[in-house]
């Protein structure tokens, strides 16, 4: 494969694209697919997509999921949207996800891990059973582990920049929906939560500063 032509990068500029990735899983019960091994108990789907369900194929070329080595052909390459993979299994494991970008981007692939979740969580404090890692609603028999993240293209190439500017890809849904919680509403909630935390910390810092001053005074 010939090396992509060296293109000029736009300095001090970055472009962001939100993605969500994760998996859904449910118990298969009796309706086992015909080609699945007998000891498999769960049907799961791992995916990488836009929070609003928009098309991402204009900048993502392909996604490679590397499954546990016990699977036949553990490296699964998805070259067209939707970038998702459905499999059966009986255990949880780390799935290696590699996102390859469009050739004009001249970028390396993005590499991260997702822990495949098949079983519901048990909250250690409330002892409640939770079937998703966020507060989104899930069907009765499903388990869900979905994460939000932002892909940041720092200093993209000129061509890639032009490509990215063709679509307003950074938009988030305004409000939480039962299907997808990641929205501007959640973002604001997050910021607010952090602000509350900061206030607490500020208070503590002040208290300790006072203590320190007093101690200094008494020492002097």
């Amino acid at each position: 494969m010939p090396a992509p032509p060296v293109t000029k990068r736009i300095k001090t500029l970055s472009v962001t694209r939100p993605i969500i990735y994760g998996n859904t899983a449910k118990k298969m019960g009796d309706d086992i697919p015909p080609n699945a091994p007998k000891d498999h108990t769960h049907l799961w789907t791992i995916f990488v997509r836009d929070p609003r369900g928009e098309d991402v194929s204009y900048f993502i070329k392909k996604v490679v999921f590397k499954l546990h080595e016990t699977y036949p052909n553990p490296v699964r390459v998805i070259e067209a949207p939707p970038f998702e993979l459905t499999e059966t299994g009986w255990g949880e494991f780390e799935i290696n996800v590699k996102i390859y970008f469009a050739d004009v981007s001249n970028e390396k692939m993005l590499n991260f891990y997702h822990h495949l979740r098949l079983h519901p969580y048990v909250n250690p404090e409330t002892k409640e059973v939770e079937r998703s890692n966020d507060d989104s609603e899930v069907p009765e028999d499903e388990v869900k582990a979905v994460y939000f993240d932002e892909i940041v293209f720092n200093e993209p190439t000129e061509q890639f920049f032009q490509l990215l500017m063709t679509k307003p890809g950074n938009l988030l849904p305004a409000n939480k929906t039962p299907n997808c919680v990641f929205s501007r509403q959640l973002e604001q909630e997050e910021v607010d939560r952090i602000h509350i935390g900061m206030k607490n910390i500020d208070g503590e810092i002040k208290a300790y500063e006072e203590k320190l001053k007093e101690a200094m005074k008494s020492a002097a």
Partner: protein
Amino acid sequence: MSSSDIFDVLNIRPKSSSPDTGTHPPSSGSLAVKQNKPQVTGIQRELYSLLGDNTPSVPIKSSNKFKDSLNSSAKPSPWSFVEFEANSHVKLRHWVKGSKELVGASVEPSSFAKFNQHLSIPSFDEEEYEQFMSGNNSEWSYEEVRYLFDLCRNYDMKWFVIADRFDYNSSNRKLDDLKDMFYTVCQRYFLLRDPENPLISQLNFPKEKELERKEHLERLLSRTAAEIAEEEALIIESRKFEMAAKKTLQEREALLQLLDHPHSDKPISQFLTSQGMSQLYANLLNDKNRKRKLDSSTPENPWMKQQQQFAQQRQQIQHQQQFKQGQLMQQQQQQHQQQLIQQQKLQQQQKLQQSQENQQNKENQPKQQKSSNSQSEENSSKDQQSEDTTEIKTEGQRLNKKQKIELQNALRRKQDSEYAEQLLEKFTPEERKSLGVIAHGEKLAPGVYLRSSKISTYKPAVQNKIVATLQELGLSVRPAMPSLAVVNEHEKLLRKIATLLEIKKQVDKFAAEKQIVNQD
């Protein structure tokens, strides 16, 4: 007993007779080997044969250390003890090669007799003497001169012997007196006889100089060991002084060169021609070499220190001038401040130095002020000629290398960010947000990354505490939605937590110390 016998005893078969070549007698193999070996001497044959095929651990050299014993069949030649004529009236004997019959027949003169030559010392009678010595009111009588010349003839001009033997009417004549008299008489004698002889002038004997020379020599030889040592030490000391003087001269020259150095705030018209340019280049190159030399030399010399101080002061003065180009008021204040600082610095140095240098420094201060005044006048007059361009240049020159690079980077970044801004000009802020594009204006590594992966982490110990704190606050380590706004806030929070932890640590430390103090 040979090696093969020992091999037999030990039941070892020699290497050459392996099973398939067993038909050959073992001795023949070892013999062949022996013949190939060089003959070794200095070791007994039996002992050597014990070595067998083994090579000795210490190399044995076959060289004979001693000279060969005399092995000549020639008959010794005859030597005879014969008489010879050493002098007309002395006869001695010596060994001569040859049989007595051949050599001892006649008494021969010594072969060294030809070297028994005598100087021809002039002889004269009283009349002659009176003739050529007329007008010379010498205290010497003819008889005494005659006596001296006789001695000279007898002892063959060996002056020390002559002086030793000289005893005429128990007069007290010194060696130099005798010499003087002898040469004077000779000169006069030859002047009468052969006035054309060019060698006459060489018969001159400078008695005074000779006496002086001897006096010096005596003094040189009569020095004590301590005096010699002192002298050597003095010589070394003087060399040091010479070296120091040389160095000082060099440094002063370098300093002068520095002063001559083209100033950046002067007009550059003289360097615009190619000749001027090449001259400037040569100057700068020279200067560079000089500077390096200066740095390498050890600053033990008090002069060096002084000069370094001067250089520092010069630099500071230049800085002051820079400010002068701006506001006059500020400049005056800063100058004052800088001078104060300078004075403080100098005073600190002085404290360490001796009181002697104190005085020098007091002299420096007025000087430095004076020079700064004069230079500022110069500057202001020249500023009118060249303003903006030189200003930038001077700034660039005064910044050191690192600062320069930083400045360049900042400029480049500025350019880049300007370009980025230009690209984004057509987008409104809302559009920018929806496109997810920002011009952050910072120097970050190019490439793609996940926002959440760039959340900063701390040292393991601190990180653990931060995680615990976050859990206390009911927040997750990884924000559920790591968007730009959230991550920025999250970062702020993390920094605050780190500060809190630091303060807490300090308070705890303080409390512990207090406890210890109280216990005491």
